[in-house]
């Protein structure tokens, strides 16, 4: 059940009523209800996904106490158990997400080197959100091993953490400690939480329907027929796809954060004005924060992080970003996406001394033009990454590069100029808000202290979405992961 569907919102209202009334005195009862609703919403699309979710939840629920028990007495055993947890998580992910891809690649490889091979792939349904909940569980295992958290003794609480319905499909990938602690106390209906949560949801709808869905019509028609388009169109589509990715995914994240907030639960923020990033590493500190910080904590730092030789650090960066790419899906385009970002982070790191020297020599630091140029360069590099991400195949990437190399020409507009302008207006509104969030400013519009302004802004936002948004259920990009 997608968060932008009517069915979800009806289910959510049904969920809220007992949650804030008959169950409000007991955290246990609220959590049990949360678990039931999470399973119902998750299983609504395809109930066959439920047994796997239940099985992994049971497995990790019993594994964690075993890890904790041996933490002091038998550290080796504890590490082995935690390794089992990590391998099990990766194994589940591999089986459901990557197995068919690997079989196909090996078959192609054997055929290419002349060893005839014909293997049939299996019909494996990939459960929605598998990349998100397996990463949550791996995080839970490692944190238990490190002693940062005690295993959750209450199965209902643990189940609610794993299956928490606003975030199970597309994150944020919540860390266990802050989340589980919130489940220990009952949540009361709080007007501030409800109001702030609802505003986040509204903003999420605005981003998704007025910007992402509008751009999607254009980028789909370009990238699905990239061979017919010239350099101008492909470059514009790549830039637009980065904006689409951001507004689509951050739109979802805003909705997830908002829905959780209404229920009195704070979840991790996933974005922090990434278009204002000064370099690619900074971009990743602001983009899909719950994944990038996960990769930093559980892959980059254990590999040695930046506290090692320069070359080793480059290697660590590259490995982390390649894994980041692979996490997105079983396709070489994602590997290229990860590799590209890894290389850009390395280049930026290698060029840092030179850049700092330049900044000192020309007193560039703090200058608006310099800051804007760096932001523009980062945006351009990330747009190229977005193109790698969106291309349907490796050969499409080659076609796009070839067509861009061939030269530029008239821009393909798909006859959507006017609605495109409406999307552009919505984008400017977004940029204005992001600018205020980045550099600070007085609370305006929906957040104004003036009640009339607040009500008028919210009403206008709702009407703008309804009147100009692309309202049909275009799926979220990150639902496929």
């Amino acid at each position, binding site marked *: 059940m997608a968060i932008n569907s*009517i069915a979800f919102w009806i289910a959510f209202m049904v969920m809220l009523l007992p949650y804030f009334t008959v169950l409000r005195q007991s955290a246990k009862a609220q959590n049990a209800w949360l678990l039931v609703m999470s399973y119902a919403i998750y299983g609504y699309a395809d109930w066959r996904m439920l047994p796997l979710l239940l099985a992994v939840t049971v497995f990790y629920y019993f594994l964690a106490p075993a890890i904790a028990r041996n933490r002091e007495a038998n550290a080796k055993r504890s590490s082995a158990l935690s390794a089992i947890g990590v391998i099990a998580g990766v194994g589940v992910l591999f089986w459901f997400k990557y197995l068919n891809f690997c079989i196909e690649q090996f078959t192609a490889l054997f055929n290419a080197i002349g060893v005839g091979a014909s293997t049939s792939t299996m019909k494996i349904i990939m459960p929605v959100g598998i990349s998100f909940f397996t990463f949550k569980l791996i995080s839970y295992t490692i944190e238990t091993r490190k002693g940062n958290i005690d295993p959750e003794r209450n199965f209902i609480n643990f189940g609610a953490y794993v299956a928490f319905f606003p975030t199970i499909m597309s994150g944020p990938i919540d860390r266990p400690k802050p989340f589980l602690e919130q489940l220990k106390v009952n949540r009361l209906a709080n007007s501030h939480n*409800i109001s702030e949560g609802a505003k986040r949801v509204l903003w999420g709808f605005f981003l998704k329907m007025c910007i992402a869905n509008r751009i999607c019509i254009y980028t789909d028609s370009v990238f699905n027929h990239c061979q017919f388009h010239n350099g101008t169109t492909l470059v514009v589509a790549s830039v637009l796809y980065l904006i689409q990715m951001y507004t689509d995914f951050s739109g979802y994240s805003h909705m997830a954060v908002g829905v959780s907030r209404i229920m009195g639960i704070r979840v991790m923020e996933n974005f922090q004005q990434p278009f204002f990033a000064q370099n690619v590493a900074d971009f990743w500190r602001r983009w899909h924060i719950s994944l990038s910080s996960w990769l930093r904590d559980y892959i980059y730092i254990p590999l040695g992080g930046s506290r090692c030789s320069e070359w080793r650090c480059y290697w660590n960066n590259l490995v982390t970003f390649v894994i980041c790419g692979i996490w997105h899906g079983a396709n070489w385009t994602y590997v290229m996406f990860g590799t590209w970002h890894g290389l850009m982070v390395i280049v930026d790191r290698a060029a840092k001394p030179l850049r700092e020297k330049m900044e000192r020599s020309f007193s560039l630091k703090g200058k608006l033009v310099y800051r804007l140029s760096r932001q523009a360069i980062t945006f351009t590099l990330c747009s190229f990454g977005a193109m790698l991400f969106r291309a349907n195949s490796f050969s499409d990437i080659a076609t796009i590069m070839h067509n861009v190399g061939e030269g530029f020409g008239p821009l393909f507009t798909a006859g959507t100029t006017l609605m495109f302008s409406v999307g552009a207006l919505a984008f400017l509104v977004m940029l204005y808000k992001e600018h205020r969030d980045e550099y600070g400013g007085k609370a305006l519009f929906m957040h104004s202290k003036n*009640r009339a302004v607040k009500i008028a802004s919210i*009403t206008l936002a709702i009407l703008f979405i*309804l009147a*100009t*948004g692309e*309202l049909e259920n275009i799926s979220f990009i990150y639902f496929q992961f």
Partner: protein
Amino acid sequence: MKKLLTNIVIVAALVITVDVLVGVVTKRLIHDLPDSSVLEADIVQAMENKKADILILGSSKAKHSFVPQIFTSDLHLSAYNAGCDGHDVVYASLVFDSFLQRCQPKIVVVGLWNSMLDGSWRNNSINNCKTLYNINESYTSWVDKHEDWTTRMKMQSNIYRFNSSLVWIGKSYNKGDQHSDGYSPLYEVPKEMSDVEFKGFKADDTEVNQLKHIIAQCNKKGIKIYIILAPDHEIDNAMRKWVADFCKKEGVWFHDYTYEKTIYPEITNFSDAGHLSDKGAQLFTKLFIANIQKGK
């Protein structure tokens, strides 16, 4: 909490008021909509206003293949081309049913293509007609019977139904009151042409049932019905066979013009692989009229 609830009530009341106002204004605009070449306006005209003795149904292939003026001059019957880009048999049947409520055509021509029959264009028909919910009886009853509860629920909102419609309503009013017979000529001619093959055709039950519905209504009301496949460089042999078998089984006049020897080999008869140029359409319409006059 009381303040929050009051705010929610105020916002809801404002949104509902605007929704009602939008409904009143846009319904009026739709009612007086002038003829224009804008796709959505064309749909409104086909569903709401047009009357003719000969009704042509189909997708863009039909739209660019049949010239109503030639029907009128050769057969002395008024004709209207209700072919619509990217729309399926469900849409064709809605236009047909709406037509029957206004007048009774003497001849119905249905031009088919694979996407009209495999269900892949269904959403276009539902979405592009949504301004006509609660205005057009055929469409309203289709949505109420066949669409899921969420779509029916969304249709209750005027703003949802008229979402983005001001753009094409504005365009239509701007383009003036040109009389349109539905035909849209294509003048561009490609430099080279090769066949594009389609595979894996599978007819969708709903589309087939609607096609059967059109045939049954024609038989019941004594309307002559002709099913055709227009000259084409987009080739779907499985679909061609399926349509031939279907028409044979239903006892309907059918002619497959895909490789029509007077049109197919000449590149200037086509505007692209799947659509006839104006020259090709004129030739084809004359040929089709000659064929039905001969009873071929």
